[in-house]
C-alpha cells in the first residue's frame, strides 16, 4: 500500500491490446478508484476472447477492495477458460491477492438468511406475539399490585425519596405547561361555543359550556395526554436505559426488587400529582374561558363566577378529579412495563418509548369513553 499526499486517483481500467490477446489492468485498484471497474467487470468478462492473458503489471496501487475485484475477475475468467493466467503482479499486490483468496470461502452460498414469511404466517405471528404481550402486561399489573400490598405491610420500605423526586419532576415541573395548555383550551372553547350561543342571545350559558366540558372531560384527559407524553416517555426511557446497562439486574443482585424502587414510587407520586395537576388545569382553563367571555360575550367576571356557583354541580368536578388517578395509574403502568421490555440496544429504547406513549394515550381515551358510557347509564 503506497500512500502519498497529492496522489491523483487514476481510475482502475481494463484494456485489451490490439490483438486482444492480453487484458491489461491499469490504474489504481483501490476503493476510490474502482467505481467504473466495478460496473464494467461482467461485460469485460463476457467479451473476453479465448486464451487471453491477464496482465497486472500496470496496476499502480492496490488495496483489499481492488484485490477482491481482481480476484473475482481472475476467478470468473478461469471459469470460462481454464488456461487463462495472471502475470506481472507486483509482490506486494500478490500478497494482498493471496490474502483475499484465503479469506474468501469456497462457495458463496448466497445470503438470504431466511425466507420472508407469508401473509397468513404474519397474521399468526402477530396474534401470537400480541397475546403473549397482553398476558405479560396483565401479570405485570399483578406483580405491581402484589408489591403494593407488600409495601403496605412494611411502610418503612416505601421509597419516600424517590416519591418526592417524581412528585417534583412529574408534578411541580409540569405545572407551567399543563396550565398554559388548559388556559388555551379554555380560550378556544369559549370562542367556538360563544359564537354559537350569541346567535340565540344565550351568552351566559358560556359558563355551563366551559365549566362542564373542562371540569368533567377536557382537563383530566388533556392533562393525562400531556403527562403521558412528558413523563411516561421519560419513565420508559429511564427504565429502558437502566435495563440495557444491566442496572436492573444489579438492583436484583443487591436484593432490591426493581418493582419496589422503580415502579411503586412513580405510581404513588403520579397518582398524587395528577389530580392536583388536574385541579390546576381546571382553574387555568376556566380563567381562559372567563377572559374570552368578558372580552367578546359581555359576560363580566362577576356574572361568570356567580353563575358558575349555581350551574356547575360539584359532581362534575369530582368526576373529573376522580378520573385523574386512574389515568395516572394507566400511564405509569404502561410506561414502566414498556421500559422493562427494552432489550438489546439504543434503538430498542426509542421503539419502546414510542409504544409506551401511543398505548397510554390510546388507553386513556378508551377508559375515558368507558367512563362516559358508564356515568350516562348510571345517570350521573
Amino acid at each position, binding site marked *: *500500500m503506497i500512500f502519498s499526499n497529492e496522489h491523483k486517483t487514476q481510475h482502475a481500467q481494463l484494456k485489451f491490446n490490439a490483438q486482444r490477446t492480453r487484458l491489461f489492468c491499469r490504474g489504481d485498484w483501490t476503493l476510490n478508484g474502482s467505481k467504473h471497474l466495478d460496473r464494467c467487470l461482467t461485460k469485460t468478462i463476457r467479451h473476453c476472447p479465448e486464451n487471453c492473458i491477464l496482465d497486472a503489471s500496470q496496476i499502480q496501487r492496490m488495496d483489499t*477492495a481492488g484485490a477482491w475485484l481482481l480476484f473475482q475477475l481472475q476467478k470468473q475468467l478461469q471459469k470460462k477458460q481454464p488456461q487463462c493466467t495472471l502475470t506481472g503482479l507486483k509482490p506486494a499486490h500478490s500478497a494482498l491477492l493471496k490474502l483475499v483468496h484465503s479469506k474468501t470461502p469456497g462457495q458463496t452460498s448466497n445470503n438470504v438468511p431466511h425466507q420472508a414469511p407469508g401473509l397468513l404466517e404474519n397474521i399468526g405471528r402477530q396474534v401470537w406475539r400480541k397475546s403473549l404481550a397482553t398476558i405479560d402486561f396483565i401479570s405485570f399489573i399483578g406483580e405491581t399490585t402484589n408489591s403494593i400490598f407488600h409495601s403496605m405491610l412494611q411502610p418503612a420500605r416505601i421509597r419516600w425519596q424517590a416519591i418526592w423526586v417524581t412528585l417534583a419532576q412529574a408534578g411541580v415541573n409540569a405545572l407551567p405547561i399543563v396550565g398554559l395548555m388548559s388556559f388555551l383550551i379554555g380560550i378556544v372553547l369559549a370562542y367556538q361555543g360563544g359564537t354559537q350561543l350569541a346567535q340565540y342571545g344565550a351568552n351566559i350559558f358560556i359558563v355551563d359550556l366551559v365549566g362542564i366540558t373542562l371540569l368533567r372531560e377536557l382537563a383530566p384527559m388533556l392533562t393525562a395526554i400531556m403527562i403521558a407524553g412528558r413523563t411516561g416517555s421519560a419513565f420508559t426511557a429511564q427504565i429502558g436505559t437502566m435495563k440495557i446497562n444491566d442496572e436492573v439486574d444489579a438492583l436484583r443482585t443487591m436484593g432490591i426488587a426493581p418493582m419496589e424502587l422503580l415502579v411503586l414510587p412513580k405510581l404513588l407520586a403520579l397518582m398524587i400529582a395528577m389530580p392536583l395537576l388536574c385541579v390546576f388545569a381546571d382553574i387555568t382553563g376556566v380563567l381562559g374561558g372567563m377572559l374570552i367571555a368578558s372580552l367578546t360575550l359581555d359576560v363580566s367576571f362577576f356574572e361568570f363566577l356567580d353563575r358558575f356557583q349555581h350551574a356547575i354541580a360539584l359532581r362534575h368536578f369530582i368526576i373529573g378529579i376522580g378520573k385523574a388517578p386512574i389515568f395516572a395509574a394507566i400511564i405509569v403502568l404502561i410506561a414502566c412495563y414498556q421500559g422493562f421490555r427494552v432489550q438489546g440496544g439504543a434503538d430498542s429504547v426509542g421503539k419502546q418509548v414510542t409504544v409506551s406513549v401511543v398505548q397510554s394515550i390510546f388507553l386513556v381515551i378508551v377508559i375515558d369513553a368507558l367512563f362516559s358510557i358508564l356515568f350516562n347509564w348510571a345517570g350521573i
Partner: protein
Amino acid sequence: MTYETVISLRNIKTHFGEHCVHQNLNLDIHRSEVLALIGGSGTGKTTLLREMILLEYPQQGSIRVFDREILGMAEHQVRWLRERCGVMFQNGALFSSLTVLENVMIPLHEHSQLSEKTMREIAMLKIRLAGLERTAAYKYPAQLSGGMIKRAALARALALDPEILFLDEPSAGLDPIGAGALDQLILEIKRLLGLTIVLVTHDLDSLWTVTDRVAVLAEKKVVAVDSMQVLSGSQHPWIRQYLHGIRGIRFNEG
C-alpha cells in the same frame, strides 16, 4: 535506520477547564510500526488518541498527519483524513440497530461508489479478515460476545483500508486467550496490510508481543518512547513500577 514519520505531534497542550492534561507533549509515529500509548488512568491517553483523529482539539500545538497540519483543517480536508484512519473505540461503538455486516458497510456506503453487491462482498471479506465467521455477519451487536464485538469493531475500522489504525484498549475486557488471539490478529493484519497502528493498552502481554515501540505518558507529557526491551531497563520511577511491579515481575523471571 531512517523512518518515515506518519504522525508528528508538537508542543501539544490540552486542558479541560482548570485541569491540565497535556503540557508540551511531543511524539513522532513512524510508518508501519505498532506504537502503544501507556500511562496511568486519567493521564490523557484516550484524549491524545482522539486529538489525532480530530474528535477533540488541543488548546495549542501542531499535529501533522502525512506531513499535513490537521488542526484547523477545512471540512473537505477532514474527509481526506477520515478515509485514511480507521478507529476502534474502547467498547466497540457498533450501531446496535444494525447487523455486523451493515455496520461494516456504513463507511463503504459513505466513502465509495461501488455497487451494493460488491460492497457487501468487501464488507464480508473484512469480517472474515477480522476472524469472524460468516454467520456472525448477520447478527446484531447485542447477540455477540465481548471478543466478537471487538472483532466486528476491528472489521469496521478496516473497512476503508486505512493507512493508520487507532485502537483504544483493544484487549480490555477479554479473557487472556481472547486477548492473545486479538494480539495475533493485530500482528497478522499489520503484516498483511502494512498498516501503522496506534493503540492504547494496559496489557503487558500485548505490549511485549505486538508493539514495536511504546510511548509512556506521565507528568503531562511523553516521558519515554522506545522498545519494551529498552524501557524495561529504564530508571524512570513510574516506568519501573509499571513494568516491574508485582504484575510485571513474571516477565523478568521468564
